């Protein structure tokens, strides 16, 4: 392939985890209090997507599903260097769990004729890690998760990844198209240059697609989501003595006692 790869990078707007609070009376999360930011592991995904494009050529398209305000994360990705961006936005998507979410992203990736789809390892709000494998499963594409490092082989239409596995690592070659979930913190995401930032904020408009545009209107949303949230509770802290001591001797006493 001489004209490079069509690379899609999925990003998600999440509430800043440090700012989410829980109403002590109702146990309900006050998402609204928290600033909306790009999911932290997605920065690693965007960086990896840009690096692969720099190596093999082609384009990077940022993709997200969310309300109109999710424009912001797409602009963030474009400011970092993504060439284009698509927002999947429609009331029909509301209440989708990971099954329909990954379906919508999978259909959009097909529509974009993707060779490689990147995502972060997991999101900081839901932490399921299910969406990248879900996209791969919906499209029956290869997948590479917990990826630390990538080696594109454009001549063979393959992407080779070094993956983190329990107790070590493995190197896996996957046929295109492939979905890649980047392990959090595995690369140094580039900072957006000033001109690019201004372009993303002022001149750039993401493409918007509805559920009908990708032909999933009957297959997304709360009603078709296999899982439902049956309740949300504040995690109860385990009661602890919380005793501070001044003397190392006392710490040694406590350790000896436990043993």
């Amino acid at each position, binding site marked *: 392939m001489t004209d490079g790869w069509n690379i899609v990078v999925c990003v998600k707007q999440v509430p800043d985890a440090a700012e989410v609070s829980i109403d002590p009376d109702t146990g309900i999360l006050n998402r609204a209090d928290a600033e909306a930011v790009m999911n932290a592991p997605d920065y690693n995904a965007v960086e990896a997507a840009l690096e692969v494009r720099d190596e093999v050529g082609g384009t990077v398209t940022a993709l997200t599903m969310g309300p109109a305000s999710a424009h912001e994360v797409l602009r963030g990705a474009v400011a970092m260097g993504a060439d284009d961006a698509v927002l999947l936005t429609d009331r029909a998507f509301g209440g989708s769990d990971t099954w329909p979410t990954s379906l919508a992203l999978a259909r959009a990736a097909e529509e974009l004729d993707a060779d490689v789809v990147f995502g972060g390892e997991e999101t900081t709000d839901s932490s399921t890690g299910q969406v990248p494998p879900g996209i791969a*499963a919906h499209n029956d594409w290869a997948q590479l998760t917990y990826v630390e490092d990538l080696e594109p082989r454009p001549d063979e239409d393959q992407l080779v990844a070094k993956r983190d596995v329990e107790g070590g690592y493995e190197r896996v070659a996957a046929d295109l198209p492939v979905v890649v979930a980047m392990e959090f913190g595995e690369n140094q995401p580039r900072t957006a240059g000033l001109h690019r930032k201004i372009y993303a904020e002022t001149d750039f408009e993401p493409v918007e697609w509805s559920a009908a545009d990708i032909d999933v209107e009957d297959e997304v949303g709360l009603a078709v989501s296999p899982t439902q949230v049956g309740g949300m509770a504040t995690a109860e802290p385990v009661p602890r003595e919380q005793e501070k001591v001044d003397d190392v001797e006392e710490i040694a006493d406590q350790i000896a006692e436990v043993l």
Partner: protein
Amino acid sequence: MAAGANADTAAEVDAHSDVWVFVEQHDGEVAKVAWELLAKGRELADQKDEDLVALVMGEDIRETDIPQQAIARGADRVLVADDPIFEPYRADPYGEQFRHLVEQRKPDIALIGGTHTGRDFAGRVAVPTHAGLTADTTELEITDERYEMRRPAFGGDALATIICPNHRPQMSTVRPGVFDTPEPDESREGEVEDVETVVGEDETLTEVLEREVGDVADITDAEVVVAGGMGLEGDFDPLWELADLLGGEVAATREAVEEGWIEPARQVGQTGKTVRPKLYIAVGISGAIQHVEGMDDSETVIAINNDGNAPIFENADYGIVADYAEVLPELIELLRERLDDTPEVSA
């Protein structure tokens, strides 16, 4: 082609029964979480008066004692998918084989360890079977004949209850270390059944070029865990010395792992492992909720940190506000004297 998203009927839900547990193995070594899941699965199957079915995939599995072990640990039946295509692990053949078995035999619930392997392929089963897949369950119970899975959300600040009212099967990945592993009962009896392999090498999408796996440290099993965080600035030596002295294991926060100070297998917390030792010593750890979540089941927690306002002190039984570099050598010396006096407790 993925199944459509049309909701299953009540009859479809009723048609599913049995508790399935995926027994993850690599090169004949079983991931301990599989035994934890069999123990929990046995409890659930008894409550529902259903069978507990273990599923093992790999090559030459019949030449190992894994099927017998699975029975000794609670399985009524063991399904063995034995084929070179399953070794080493790859998401696409594992997912396809598991999907086939799920569609053919209709389990009510399937439990998979929340390891990198389990989290990698669970979705490849859940998507085509349109199963409800809950990630990283930490509590699992049956209420009104319905499974309720609880899992941490928002970095552990909240606990979400996930239900799956209209779809079968239900699936869940479960973190290592969450459930107990009782002693196996070698006198238990069960059936071992070989299943047909439905995937061929020419259909696979991936190839493992190289696999390097050393001795995996198992911090989930340790009675004593000495853990370090950013406050150590990479200086883990005194932690190893203290852990050796106490017969324990060294663990770390995610940040310390990301700095490359210690291997990822020793990470405790939301994205790492859950530990429940008798004694947890947190050194230079601030106590972010994501970390606390992985060590909150420890019996006694001791914190050493030079920042008196660090949240770890709220999650500790005993704490000392001091520099680890001063405390640890003194502590090691004091403990060495005491343990020498009473060698029988040094276990």
